[in-house]
């Protein structure tokens, strides 16, 4: 048994996803706080719900789309699987199942973060403190990723962990790129200004830490199209879609070349289709007009890849559940809802 347990690989993958998800959610809330500032009447919070396609469950639970409610729903609500608190909990559950493999430093780090998230007080949740809370959360998530980088053993498990981070990062970046669409859909932005103004894209850039890098690379006035292209295609920007997809491809290759695991065509083809999608968009002059469609397609393909990784590596070996091989590559139809998985078991 020289190979990684399938369950541990699964846990590592989702550990990576949940940490990245918590960081990304903080980023989305940060966009809102910056965006909302100084506008008469506020831009409203409904678009965040649209972005994650969660208006219905939210309204069922809270009734009213107030700032306070939306913040609670995404920051602290442990009943809501898509909240930052739930993401951190889920990350820690996975880490707990992995404790024999991960470093003590990492476990200590995630415990500290978990402890703080579990004890968010009203002040941390308040609208005026939200920016600080989110910024701190984001830094903590970076620290966690950094601890992993500095301490994890570089076996197949590391690749699955990174794969989780990159897939989630791409998924969340594409959602962030869709903010404008969500705002238009919910009437929280002016229709005459379909692609958003300078201020909007500037906020987006800052939210994902790309503002300075953008300034360094792109000369001239800030255009929606140039910002979008930077966030999507710039290979040197660590949060760009292009960078993530490239990383996913590299990790899959390392599974084969470094870890001696087979990477079947079913996995490689799905990664190629991700890259194909970006290549196609890059060549299309008016692609910004189809940004939402591209995001939609990208999220479907990421979900599809996740499903295939699961079938190939995480659950394949159970003879009780024979694996149905999908020939046509039809994705599991869950494009909008965020995928979730937690590694908890029920007591006997």
């Amino acid at each position, binding site marked *: *048994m020289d190979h990684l*347990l*399938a369950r541990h690989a699964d846990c590592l993958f989702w550990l990576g996803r949940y940490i990245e998800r918590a960081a990304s959610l903080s980023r989305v809330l940060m966009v809102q706080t910056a965006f909302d500032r100084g506008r008469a009447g506020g831009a409203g919070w409904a678009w965040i719900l649209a972005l994650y396609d969660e208006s219905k469950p939210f309204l069922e639970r809270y009734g009213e789309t107030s700032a306070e409610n939306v913040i609670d729903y995404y920051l602290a609500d442990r009943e809501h699987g898509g909240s930052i608190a739930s993401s951190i909990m889920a990350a820690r559950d996975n880490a707990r*199942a992995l404790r*024999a493999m991960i470093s003590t430093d990492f476990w200590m780090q995630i415990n500290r973060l978990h402890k703080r998230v579990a004890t968010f007080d009203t002040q941390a949740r308040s609208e005026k403190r939200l920016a600080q809370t989110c910024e701190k959360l984001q830094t903590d998530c970076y620290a966690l990723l950094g601890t992993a980088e500095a301490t994890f053993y570089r076996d*197949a498990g590391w690749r699955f962990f990174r794969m989780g981070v990159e897939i989630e990062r791409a998924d969340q970046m594409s959602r962030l790129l869709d903010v404008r669409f969500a705002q238009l859909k919910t009437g929280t932005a002016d229709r005459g200004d379909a692609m958003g103004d300078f201020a909007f894209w500037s906020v987006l850039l800052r939210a994902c830490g790309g503002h300075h890098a953008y300034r360094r690379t792109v000369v001239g006035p800030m255009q929606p199209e140039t910002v979008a292209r930077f966030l999507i295609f710039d290979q040197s920007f660590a949060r760009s879609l292009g960078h993530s997809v490239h990383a996913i491809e590299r990790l899959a290759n390392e599974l084969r070349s470094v870890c001696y695991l087979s990477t079947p065509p079913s996995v490689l083809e799905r990664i190629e289709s991700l890259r194909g999608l970006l290549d196609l968009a890059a060549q299309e002059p008016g692609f910004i007009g189809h940004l939402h469609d591209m995001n939609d397609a990208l999220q479907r393909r990421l979900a599809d890849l996740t499903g295939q990784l699961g079938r190939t590596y*995480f659950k394949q070996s*159970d003879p009780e559940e024979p694996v149905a091989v999908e020939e046509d590559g039809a994705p599991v139809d869950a494009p909008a809802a965020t995928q979730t998985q937690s590694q908890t*078991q029920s007591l006997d």
Partner: protein
Amino acid sequence: MAELKAFRDPTEPALLANYKRGASFCELMGDGADERPRLLQFWRRLEQLRSSELSERAADALTELHERGVTFTVYTEKDEIDRALPFDVIPRVLPASEWETLEKGVVQRVAAINAFLWDVYHDQKILKDGIVPRELVLGNENFRKEMIGVDVPNGTYAHICGVDLVRNAAGQFMVLEDNARTPSGVSYVVENRHLMQRAFPDLLQGFNVREVSSYGQNLRDKLLECAPAACDDPKLVLLSPGVFNSAYYEHIFLAREMGVPLVEGRDLVVIDDRVFAKTVAGLSPVDVIYRRIDDNFLDPKVFNPDSMLGVPGLVDCMRAGTVTIANAPGAGVADDKAIYAYMPRIIDYYLSEEAILPNVETHICREPEALQYTLDHLDELVVKPVGESGGYGIVVGPRATTEELEDVRKALKEDPANYIAQPMIQLSVCPTVTEEGVAPRHVDLRPFAVTGRDTWVLPGGLTRVALKKGSIIVNSSQGGGTKDTWVLEPGQSGDGVAGA
């Protein structure tokens, strides 16, 4: 010792100035017959510490345990709470000569236990010869008929064995209980030492204390010695019930120390009498399983059918000889509290030796004379239910209320076979940090023995301490803590034993 002196407040009394050991044997001071402390060198070292400093450093040590996650987990309906087992920073020290006897005694005991288990699952000679009552073994709930006729490698059933020892007022070590199923606590032995090394390097300095960190390596070696004969590169895994088990930290610790995967039942599958682990590269054979789940949950096909923790078909594999399970199913029949009473006779029967470590005198209440004696002396005896562990259900006669005594009298009459009774042992004490300064608290000792072709004993073992004043129940569930246990290397000067 300059470092220690720097902390000294001249107005503060010496650490042990007000220490009174009471009527018990003291691990540090001895039985008081001699004016000099039993462990003179260590006593001198402690005298250089001050209580305020000690408490401060002790608090830091405990925080560290928490941060590092050296905890057991208590689950309530809503939350999970990670607790660190209370740790007392004043070590319990065993001189080399004393340890030598203990080690021999433990090795002897484990040899007898394994011989007994082999016999009861094969020829049952000891039953035929009438040494141990037949119904006590065959009617025992831990006797597994599935094990009859199974040849385990090296004849080893109890690969990991914990022997609970106490010391009476005369300083004599005695066996209180054997643990031949899944004894726990060894992670604390190693972690406690690491903690002492970090928090009290000055206390350890100059003492030649035998190391404990090789436990994982020795455990791994011994377990691999018991791999099925047909295997040349055996694969070992540690089988845990999972994150909800209160000893989950220990499972993590052992898997790490041995460098083997920590698996759960759902990670294993049986195909054609062979056990496999589900890995990212497919099914991978497993040859030796160190399981930390009880017999009952091991294999739903054979034992508890509702168990979700085990692996269906595991016992068939063991019977087919394709996998070694440590400890072997059915090993628990040897550590039963009722069988315990026969251990001196069991040792004599198989090894033709006298027990090096005596038993505590035990009245088996299933025997009418013993029952009568117990009922007549209830207020002097400790009554224990045979099937329980963790210190539950024990009634300490001399400390019990009239009501408690009446309850146990009734229970004894209703189901005498469920009880044994022992005289109350005045457990030895060890100086311990308490709210009232350093005071004596009762301790026991659980050495850990691992057996493959032969037996290796971890130097020292787990010292548990009853933190409640006067209490003799050391179990963690009943307010017990632990101490680092030092076994001194033989022949070092200043061994510390009076007169040595």
